[in-house]
């Protein structure tokens, strides 16, 4: 699959490597969406950002760095978080989207937007020593087929859940980009890639089937 235009939503641990991989693959236009500013604790896993960038807009800094590395690349910056009411318009016009967000809620409304925009989205996640990625096509399966309804008000996760290895996020983001460019699957099916980076290293590839009638990926008239 050729992708001319890709959108990366979230320029953190997943979005940084995904954006680089897309640019290296020759994607001609990248839209970068992120409302956050750079924090010192981001730097070990978000290699576009330097020490002096702390406090700056992530989307703007990543765009500038990408431009310096790839002068022929067309980069559009949206220095704001994607929201349920803006995500559709953001995604339209792109061949593929990358989920670089770090909130469960965002991942769900991004997944929901695939059906009504027709833009495939590659989900990614990294927590502690585990990295995951899977490609959500307009026909599903989607995040709801995989995980069901979003979890309710989560019990406050312990601080150790905030631990993450930067390089593992790099693997997830790099893989997301590959799935974005190359990964169309059989209709109604998708593979979830999981890497457990502890000890003896374990990789699992799970085949997810679309759940019939799933509210997240059933065909519907495109929203306004």
């Amino acid at each position, binding site marked *: 699959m050729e992708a001319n235009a890709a959108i990366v939503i979230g320029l953190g641990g997943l979005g940084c490597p995904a954006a680089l991989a897309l640019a290296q693959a020759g994607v001609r236009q990248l839209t970068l969406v992120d409302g956050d500013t750079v924090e010192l604790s981001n730097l*070990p896993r978000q290699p576009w950002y330097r020490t002096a960038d702390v406090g700056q807009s992530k989307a703007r800094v990543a765009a500038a760095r990408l431009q310096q590395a790839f002068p022929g690349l067309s980069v559009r910056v949206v220095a704001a978080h994607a929201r349920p009411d803006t995500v559709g318009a953001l995604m339209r016009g792109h061949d593929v989207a990358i989920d670089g967000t770090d909130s469960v809620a965002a991942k769900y409304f991004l997944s929901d937007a695939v059906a009504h925009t027709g833009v495939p989205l590659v989900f990614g996640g990294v927590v502690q020593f585990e990295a995951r990625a899977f490609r959500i096509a307009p026909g599903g399966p989607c995040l709801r087929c995989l995980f069901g309804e979003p979890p309710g008000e989560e019990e406050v996760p312990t601080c150790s859940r905030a*631990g993450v290895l930067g390089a593992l996020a790099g693997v997830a983001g790099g893989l997301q980009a590959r799935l974005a460019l190359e990964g169309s699957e059989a209709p109604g099916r998708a593979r979830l*890639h999981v890497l457990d980076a502890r000890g003896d290293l374990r*990789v699992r590839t799970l085949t997810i089937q679309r759940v019939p009638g799933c509210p997240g990926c059933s065909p519907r008239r495109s929203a306004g």
Partner: protein
Amino acid sequence: MGSGPVALREDQVQRYSRTILLRGVGGAGQRALLQTGARLLSGGPAFLTAAAYLGAGGTPVEGPPGLVGPDEAGFLVEARDVGQAAAPTLQRALLRLNEDAVVQPRAFGSLAALPDGGGSPRPLVALGRRGDHVVLLGAGVEACGDCLAQLCQGTQAPVAGPDAVQAGALAALLFQRLVLGLAPPLSGLVVSPGGEMQVLPLPECRHGPRLAAAVLAEAVRHLEACYPEEGCGVVLEGAAGTRWVALPNAYAAWAARDPDAFPRDARSAFLFEPAQWLALLKEADARAEKLLCVVHAHPDGQPALSAEDTAQAAPGGQPLLPGVAYLVVAIQQGRATAAAWARWQAGRFVEVPLPLLR
């Protein structure tokens, strides 16, 4: 409290907070990352991505040789850097990313290209291809050189491709795991053209020692001469090859001083005199030799590590001398009859019988 580890600076505690939070890592793990450098022995987009993640994570990075290539633009390299000397370009970029990435560390491991990179200093991550699959190998200090060489066979040099970010991040991950002590001595991954990863299955190491026959014979003669007591010593390995160093068995002397702590005798136990052991290590260091194995005899016993031997060699389940093997020689009636070579693998000693040529 004596001199403890150098504390992390406040800015480091902030920067590396998410790494410190990881189970089994903590401040100690982060300090380990800061102290073991990675020398890039090859360029290319995958290696440069690895350099970015390693440097960002606090690992000092050096290299690579040569000039910046046109496919290397990325986290550390801008389009205008193409054609410049790669190592200084990287140093400038790393300094802006993280000043910890440009300090001189205690020691360097390597990131090298297959198939030739297998002999590079450890901890080592080697990257290359087998056909259209990317191959990554991680080797710690303890990894068997022969097993590693076997895994390197049939591989080719890395080629820039759509997998560079994923491959480079994997290389950084494997390196960090080795430094953090979270990885077995040898591990490998294969990445298919679609990005799917698979762990390389590793056979149990059945390789014997890289001991010259004459050195083994000298050791055996010494052990036979010590019969019926447990003779002991070490084999050192340096640029000139291996050499045997006999050490007196100090067990009897210690037993005489403290029979409660040392209840056995020199026929069933061995001990190196600490002062002599230290002197030997210093000498080996000065001669750029490393400890290959500890040798001892089992007079009228089995050619295998006893429970006491294992407890001594790996107290608390952790090898006291990482990367060092153990040679146990059974001596019956003053003649060596059989021997075993034991190496620490995946949490236990794996023993291989060693033929004794007569």
